[in-house]
């Protein structure tokens, strides 16, 4: 499974780097990538402009799609593990919009001043704030009810939406444009320094999540039994919430709201691999990267001469999927459990 995902991902990366306004042969993509690492091959593009287009525009964008997809999918899987519920997802419960609200606040108030790091910091704060809120609101007697979780998500999304609207209202036109970019979600205009920040945060978040994987398995037994088996449940939860906030915040800060990746990917991986979390988290990271890489290719090629926002695409596919999952969950548990 892992190998299949890697192959699909490598193919997607090559495809994503090759397609666009300037069509570039896959061999030239490989050649340019090697050249950038100091290895000259006969595949290297003849024209310097090709190499430059690849390294300045395409490669950072492809890298970002891989990182954002992996981060969002792992964030979803971790959230589902700590809520013990396959319907938990950063976008659905409002973590993504909370992070976007934080980022928008940074833009409008001028706290960011174009600085990549401070927008990320605000997005991170928004993500942490909303995650803590949802955590506090949606739990009762040690478990989370689906209804409470989703209603909390509605409330949080509504509030964040209103906050974003207010910021649009008071912001100048440049800020408005930037905020709209967040709401739609896009990988356009990604630069290497941004990739570096997201890469660092995603690596930390995914590494911590994978290290905690055996404990997530025990959490499936319920928190009382997990505690009897030696898990410090409360500590595990708090660390996990921070992981979710770091991963989601990092992804949202630069790519905007890309919803449902954290819902669809872990669910499909669980169907294929089973629920054990170590394999699930690693496969979700790969699967998320695959999904977003291809979604980005689709976003750039579906409409000739224009680029669809990638967040629109994932929601277009993810929304119906969520609906199906909800129906299935309900019919299985014989009601709203």
């Amino acid at each position, binding site marked *: 499974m892992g190998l299949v995902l890697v192959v699909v991902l490598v193919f997607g990366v090559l495809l994503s780097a090759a397609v666009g306004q300037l069509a570039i042969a896959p061999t030239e993509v490989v050649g340019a990538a090697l050249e950038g690492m100091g290895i000259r091959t006969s595949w290297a593009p003849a024209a310097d402009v090709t190499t430059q287009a690849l390294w300045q525009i395409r490669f950072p964008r492809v890298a970002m799609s891989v990182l954002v997809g992996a981060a969002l999918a792992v964030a979803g899987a971790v959230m589902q593990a700590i809520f013990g519920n396959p319907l938990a997802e950063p976008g659905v419960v409002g973590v993504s919009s909370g992070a976007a609200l934080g980022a928008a606040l940074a833009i409008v108030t001028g706290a960011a001043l174009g600085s990549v790091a401070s927008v990320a910091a605000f997005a991170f704060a928004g993500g942490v704030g909303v995650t803590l809120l949802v955590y506090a609101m949606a739990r009762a007697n040690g478990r989370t009810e689906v209804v409470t979780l989703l209603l909390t998500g509605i409330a949080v999304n509504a509030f964040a939406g209103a906050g974003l609207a207010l910021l649009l209202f008071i912001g100048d036109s440049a800020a408005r444009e930037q905020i709209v970019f967040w709401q739609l979600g896009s990988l356009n205009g990604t630069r290497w320094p941004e990739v570096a920040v997201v890469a660092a945060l995603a690596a930390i978040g995914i590494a911590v999540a994978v290290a905690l994987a055996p404990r997530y*398995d025990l959490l499936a*037994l*319920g928190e009382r*039994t997990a*505690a*009897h088996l030696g898990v410090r449940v409360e500590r595990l939860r708090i660390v996990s919430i921070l992981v979710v906030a770091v991963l989601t915040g990092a992804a949202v800060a630069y790519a905007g709201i890309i919803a449902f990746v954290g819902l669809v990917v872990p669910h499909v991986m*669980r169907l294929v691999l*089973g*629920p*054990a979390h170590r394999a699930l988290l690693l496969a979700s990271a790969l699967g998320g990267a695959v999904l977003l890489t291809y979604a980005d290719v689709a976003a750039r090629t579906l409409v000739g001469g224009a680029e669809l926002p990638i967040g629109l695409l994932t929601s277009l596919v993810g929304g119906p999927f969520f609906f199906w999952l909800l129906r299935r969950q309900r019919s299985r548990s014989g009601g709203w459990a």
Partner: protein
Amino acid sequence: MTAAIHAREVTVRVGDAVLADRVTLDVRHGELLALVGPNGAGKSTLLSALSGERELAGGLVELDGRPLSAWQPGALARERAVLTQDNQVAFSFTVREVVAMGRSPWRARPEADEDDAVIAESLARADVSHLADRVFASLSGGERARVSLARVLAQRTPVVMLDEPTAALDIRHQEEVFALARSLAKSGSAVVVVVHDLSLAAAYADRIAVLDRARLAGLGSPREVLVPELLEPVYGLDVRVIEDPDTGLPVVLPRR
């Protein structure tokens, strides 16, 4: 010799309600103690106080001579296993995976080498080997109870606490579970079982603790404790205690 579990003046409060009121008892290694009493008498509460799950409002619980507060969670999980009443598993974990989770406290220790053997043996002892590849969530209530018991067995601890392990079981499996608890005690474990069926407790327990409105109303061998004078005020019901013709142990019946 130090008692496996030593509880002294254990008191548990939730708000104004007193759920355990100055309960003092010892459980020795090699002993099966049954906790009985009417609904709401505080059996599960007392068990959760003994397991370290619940904060005490007063008193002390020692495990192997050390107060519960001095145990690290990991070491505690290698010392005592707990079967709770409500056993649900999120996501589609299989029976084998669930039982394997019982081995998690032993991860990265020499004992982990025996994992596969212990898991197979635990599945067999709880009579669920044939369910090993089924998804836990698809099982019946009785099957879930037995699988959860197998998970507790896989933990291989010298102290075992079972909260109504027989609640969802037919009479054959009730007998088997208590025979299993009995054999755990025989092999040196200290076993505490919450149970409603007094005759079942009488047949398998070394001693019985009767709880009445958060207090200990009686503690002793089945013959000492299961007498009408003690049981009738506790349960508010007239009972008849007869002798089992085969074993001579008491059998408790309501007077009808």
